């Protein structure tokens, strides 16, 4: 459901024709957020699914983003087991680092497989990292609220 929601949101944002939104990697935000709140297993599978769908939507060989998002989901989930990553600014930097790492992994894969890198890959990666981490400040807040509201709803039947 979350993945489908991400797809819908991504398409909706693209339809707004805002230049800033074109650089926001919602699938990365999904993978990182899953890693922050869910288990390693869920984050790994979630990252894999998100990356594979992103590859399909972007007409890339399936596995480029699948590989990087799988790695990110697992890494963030592993880190969040030992470090509390609830602070907003800490999450900002986590997303920033994850976005750069995602570009490095996918770019490295394309390079290793003798595939052409996108035009202005390095500049685009930096802009995308900045835009995605900025967007994370808002989106993660919204997601937290949604998650807490849902948790409250789930907890009510057992209140008495």
């Amino acid at each position: 459901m979350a993945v489908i929601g991400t797809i819908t949101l991504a398409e909706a944002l693209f339809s707004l024709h805002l230049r800033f939104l074109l650089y926001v990697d919602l699938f990365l935000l999904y993978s990182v957020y899953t890693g922050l709140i869910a288990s390693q297993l869920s984050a790994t599978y979630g990252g894999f699914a998100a990356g594979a769908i992103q590859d399909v939507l972007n007409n890339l060989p399936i596995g480029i983003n699948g590989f990087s998002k799988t790695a990110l989901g697992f890494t963030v989930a592993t880190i969040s087991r030992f470090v509390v990553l609830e602070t907003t600014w800490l999450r900002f930097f986590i997303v920033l680092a994850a976005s750069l790492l995602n570009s490095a992994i996918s770019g490295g894969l394309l390079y290793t497989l003798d595939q052409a890198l996108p035009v202005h890959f390095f500049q685009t990666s930096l802009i995308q990292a900045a835009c995605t981490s900025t967007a994370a400040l808002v989106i993660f807040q919204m997601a937290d609220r949604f998650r807490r509201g849902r948790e409250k709803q789930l907890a009510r039947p057992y209140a008495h």
Partner: protein
Amino acid sequence: MIRIQNRPILNFVSLLILNIFLLSIQIRKPSGQILLKSWTLMVLSPILSATSYVFAQSFHLWDDYVNLIGTHKQNLRLQQENSSLRMELQRLEELDRLHSRLQDYQKFQAQFQYSTRVARVIAKSAPFWRHSWFLNIGSDDGVRLNDAVITPVGVVGRIVNVTAGTAEVELLTNNNAGAGVQVGENRVQGIAQGNGSDNLIIKYISNQEQVQPGDLVTTSGTDRIYPPGLRVGRVTSTRNSSQIFKDISVKPAADLAVLQEALVLAGYRYASPKP
């Protein structure tokens, strides 16, 4: 049984491998080959090479160091075969040289109007005693006494003994053998005579005549054995003697020590005119 659900690292690695697999079946190399096939070959080729190397070395070890039954016999047989082939090669090389020489003789033969026979030298006498050869042709081939024997290079001698199948040649260098000659541009007449050495001397040329070292000596035909104009040799030294005739030394044109074939002028009959 491994419980995969409780092993996130295993899941993580599996998913990474799945991603790589997915990439490998989609991406093609510039040659058109999909990566999975290329990678598979890349992984397999060292194994195949190693296997092939091990098998080859094993067979090599077996054939060269273990299974040597019959090798000694085979070695001996090959050595014999090698010797035979070497001898055959020498024989063929000799035939080739003979063929070349015979071609030269045939060209020279065509220059003469009279009949000639190509003869092979079958024996040579020791030059200490006598300068003579034995040829493989005789009276059955039309060879007669006093027939001239020549080579494309120069005069050799004359037939002094003949049988049905052989003929003895007295070389011009033999002691007291002789031929009428003419020397140099002036065609000064004289008699070339052997003295048992490798050179000839020319007699009966006056001290007044101009003869220089290097002058060409040819037959004059006056002896009625050798046709005129055949090359005999070149003057090596000349000096005026105390008597009236010069002392002239000549080196024969034909290298008599190494010749193995000669031409017999069987048709030249000045030596024995009909009565």
